[in-house]
């Protein structure tokens, strides 16, 4: 049985189709990868699932809730959390305050510093987010989403700009999420990284779903390789 079920989602901005007729099902407990070149519509999809924008057509069901698409607060309420591609944190607040905001004001429970420990932020609790090194800031972004204790987490390029060591660490973290029963929808440019941790992969190209399968199938698919390297492909 699938946790998330996306049916015929389409959205257009000013006449341009950003997503057309996207459908897929994400079962519980997996890491589901979503790749595609710039402008393919990956972030748009995350924005729709998290309620930041409304699709023009289509429906979403999640964990028994059939009423999607929904508002941002509703999405959080039913257990969907997200991170942002350009890491967003409350830059004027300390790490501790950031986590407090997410836990207390967002999810409505007490601050749990276990998440900070899990993400290696425990030594930086009193640093102001805006002054954090990049890698810590990215981890803070994930920590904010995890503070909501979601059932599904949407990670928008968590590995961007990280060093190899940090990427490995992020990978381990993502795997550990599924162990805790959190399902992950992972958008990533770093395909090597994605392939190493995803159970299944969808490929988006210019708003359409081009491929769906295991990472190994994906890496062998010539169409995917062409699209991904920006060679050829049909005209938009």
């Amino acid at each position, binding site marked *: 049985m699938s946790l998330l079920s996306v049916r015929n989602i389409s959205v257009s901005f000013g006449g341009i189709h950003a997503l057309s007729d996207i459908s897929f099902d994400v079962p519980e407990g997996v890491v589901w990868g979503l790749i595609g070149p710039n402008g393919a519509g990956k972030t748009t999809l995350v924005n729709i699932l*998290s309620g*930041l924008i409304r699709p023009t057509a289509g429906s979403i069901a999640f964990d028994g809730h059939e009423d999607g698409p929904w508002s*941002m*607060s509703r*999405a*959080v*309420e039913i257990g969907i*959390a*997200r991170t*942002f591609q350009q890491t*967003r*944190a*409350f*830059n*004027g*607040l300390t790490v501790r*305050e950031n986590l*407090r*905001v*997410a836990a*207390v*004001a*967002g*999810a*409505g429970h007490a601050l749990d510093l276990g998440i900070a420990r899990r993400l290696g932020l425990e030594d930086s609790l009193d640093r102001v987010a805006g*002054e954090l090194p990049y890698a810590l800031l990215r981890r803070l972004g994930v920590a*904010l*989403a995890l*503070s*909501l204790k979601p059932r599904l987490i949407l990670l928008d390029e968590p590995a961007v700009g990280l060093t190899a060591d940090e990427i490995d660490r992020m990978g381990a973290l993502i795997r550990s999420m599924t162990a805790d029963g959190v399902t992950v929808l992972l958008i990533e440019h770093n395909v090597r990284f994605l392939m190493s941790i995803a159970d299944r992969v969808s490929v988006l190209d210019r708003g359409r779903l081009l491929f769906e399968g295991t990472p190994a199938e994906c890496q062998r698919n010539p169409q995917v390789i062409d699209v991904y390297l920006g060679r050829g492909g049909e005209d938009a």
Partner: protein
Amino acid sequence: MHGLTRPLLVSLVVLAAALAAVPLLNEYVLYVAMLAALFAILAVSFDVLLGFTGYLSLAHGALFGVGAYCCAYLTARAEVSFWLALPASALLTAVIGALVAVLAFRTRDLYFAVLTLGIGLVGHQLFLVASGITGGIGGFVGIPSMPEIALFGSPSQQKLVVALIGVWITYLAATAFVRSPLGVACQAVREDHVLAQALGIRIAVARLSAFVFGAFFAGAAGALFATFSNFVAPESFAVLAAGFQVVVLVVVGGMGTLWGPILGAVLLTALPESLRVASTYSLLAYGALLLAFIIFAPRGIAGFLIDGARRLRSARAGREPSA
């Protein structure tokens, strides 16, 4: 609320010190100190909106006036006890504040500032036009004094004591508010409202509560002002008077801290008084000092002190301050 212990203790010590000084002051200093205390209440309550939620409202002076006229009317015309009129005025101001907020929060940034400027100007005009209730331009005359408190000193001393306790209560309430889930949500709104929404925070509720909180204490400050002065006139509540003054107090004191605005209120009430001797040049000196201050300490007194303390600490630790 275990985090409140420290601010509670520190503020109690400061309050005790301030109260201990009361018997030493002459009538003039008592009056100026009382004004400073009322402005401190205004500034702290305003900072919850400006410093913690990130919205610049210029209607705060008008809300201050709502509280003042409400208390004046209740005590002078309806002959309600002051101790009842005080919370009633604060509540009514909070309700009106909520209405203003619902209108104003349809906009943001400079548009929000100008919209609230317009609301502030309308409020001031209404005080003038509704002369049946407010006394119009001639002001509201004959507001009864606060009932005497048998325990302590002269009427002026009692006023200052009540005002100081008012500052203390406002400070504690504001501290509790900004640390409550709502207050934390307000800071999220200030920092990044998209992220706040993505974390499931209902930003409309958060910023509305900040506005209403500010309005409540602005109303209380207004009620105190009315009863302490026995007379109020619309001019005190004009946008160009209290409306801008409270912004200046908070920015000069230091936005986003709750003690900074108190320092701002004290300093900027004392400054023009100390410049009285310079008469013709006093306003020029005031403007120039304000300009110099904002240029050299753009984050206010609080920012200046915090930076200084940090530098001192890292110097003591024997290393450069980290970036």
